[in-house]
């Protein structure tokens, strides 16, 4: 379904339920030559991760289906997705939320409203270079 992997492009799975936000995020990564898949539901995201095999995942926390914490936990539990770096991008900001996300294995926690898009893009690019 996702076809042969394009040479030299990195795959990014964006799990975000706000359509407008997903659009601007996707565009900024397409501009950087990423192959981007957009999923707006937590449960569907788990299935998609298994099949799309992204190099990195951008994960929102407030999601329909299964919330971001649930998705993150299951991603890290499944052997085929456990090693994919996950970066949380959310507008929740409590110290408890950030701690939980990092404890569950998130590489980083960006608060959408407080973070520049270029900072997030830069961080993702640095992760896939490794």
């Amino acid at each position, binding site marked *: 379904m996702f076809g042969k992997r394009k040479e030299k492009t990195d795959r990014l799975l964006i799990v975000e339920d*706000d359509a*407008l*936000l997903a659009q*601007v*995020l996707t*565009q*900024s990564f397409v*501009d950087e030559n990423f192959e981007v898949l957009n999923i707006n539901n937590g449960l569907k995201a788990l299935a998609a991760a298994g099949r799309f095999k992204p190099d990195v995942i951008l994960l929102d926390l*407030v999601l329909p289906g299964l919330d971001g914490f649930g998705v993150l936990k299951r991603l890290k539990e499944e052997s085929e997705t456990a090693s994919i770096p996950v970066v949380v991008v*959310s*507008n*929740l*900001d*409590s*110290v408890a939320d950030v701690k939980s996300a990092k404890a569950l294995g998130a590489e980083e926690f960006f*608060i*959408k*409203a*407080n973070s*520049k*898009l*270029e900072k997030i893009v830069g961080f993702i690019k640095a992760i896939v270079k490794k």
Partner: protein
Amino acid sequence: MDGAVVLILTVIPASFFVAFFYQAYRLRALAREFKKEKVNTETQKLRVEAMLDSIGDGVVATDKDGVVIFLNKVAEEILAWTPEMLGKRLGDISLLADENGRHISVQKHPLHLCIAKREKIVTKDYHFVRPGSFDLAVYISATPIILNNAVVGAIEVFRDITQEKAVDKAKSEFVYLASHQLRTPLSTIGWYLEMLLSRDAGPITKDQKTYLDEAYLSNRHMVELVNEMLDASRLELGTLAPKTEPIKLLEILNEEIGEVTPLADKKQIAIKKKVPKVFPVISADPKHSRIIFQNLLTNAVKYTPEKGLVNVTVAVDGSNYRIAVADNGYGIPKAEQSKIFSKLFRADNIKDKIPSGTGLGLYTVKSIVDQLHGSVSFVSQENKGTTFTVTLPLTPARDAAKKG
């Protein structure tokens, strides 16, 4: 001779009778008085009991060992009072648990604690555990009765606060949702503007850049406002106890000075620091300390013209510590000084010079300081400068034993 005998035989008994009747009369008068007093006292007692019964709060009075000697109607109902409880200690007949469900021992029961410590004890986070009935969240205030320097008894007043707790829960859920809902469209706008400004959608003219910059600035301003509103809201949820941990205050100060340094450098403002070589590790909520430093430092740098000076001092003062931030900036006009801690207030003399500012910073600082039983004050002269001083206790008041 007969006459004298007759006199003696009549006068002596007569005087006895007179004395007797007189005493009887006096005794009856006294008895009447006692009866009147007894009725008065009983009436007063009934009046006091009626008053206590019509109070919506539970009132319990105990002797110096905490054994119950009186309860009003509300207390009887809430504690499911039965006659077997007579002669027992309040801690033994009312089971308390904290918000985590952990049972409170008899010694830590507010009433027994107030007798042991000889001071008023107030708790807001306990609930009565009532087997066969639902738990009741209560506000408890226990005060010892001290006569001639000895504790002779104690009084506990408690109030059902289920409603207040429900309102607080609703407020924190609102804050939680608002942080997400308000910020999402703000993020979207911000990111699209970012894309436009970095020419991702093609080249832009000079005028277009100017308009886009303004829009972006406004967007950032709104994000800052939402952030500060959320911080202030979270503080207003009065019953939320600070999450304290051992913190290194001076480290936090250095980090916050670092955060404000880029802005200070841009304005060529020097920030000088005077702190003790050694400062004790204190128990505090690091977020509170950050907010205090952040606001005082940002204000000092923002409201001081170029090439100005900001001085930060931290010092221990008895059982408190003091944080002072002084600047030689625009100052606060005397006519507006009384409003400086109000929500959303910004003084007229800086509104035009520095358009960005939410007017929430000092309100938030004062809320935090009040909650920690500290104090915040300032001295200021227009165009000369301002010094803000925050004083806080080194050891926070224990949640379960706040002084009245």
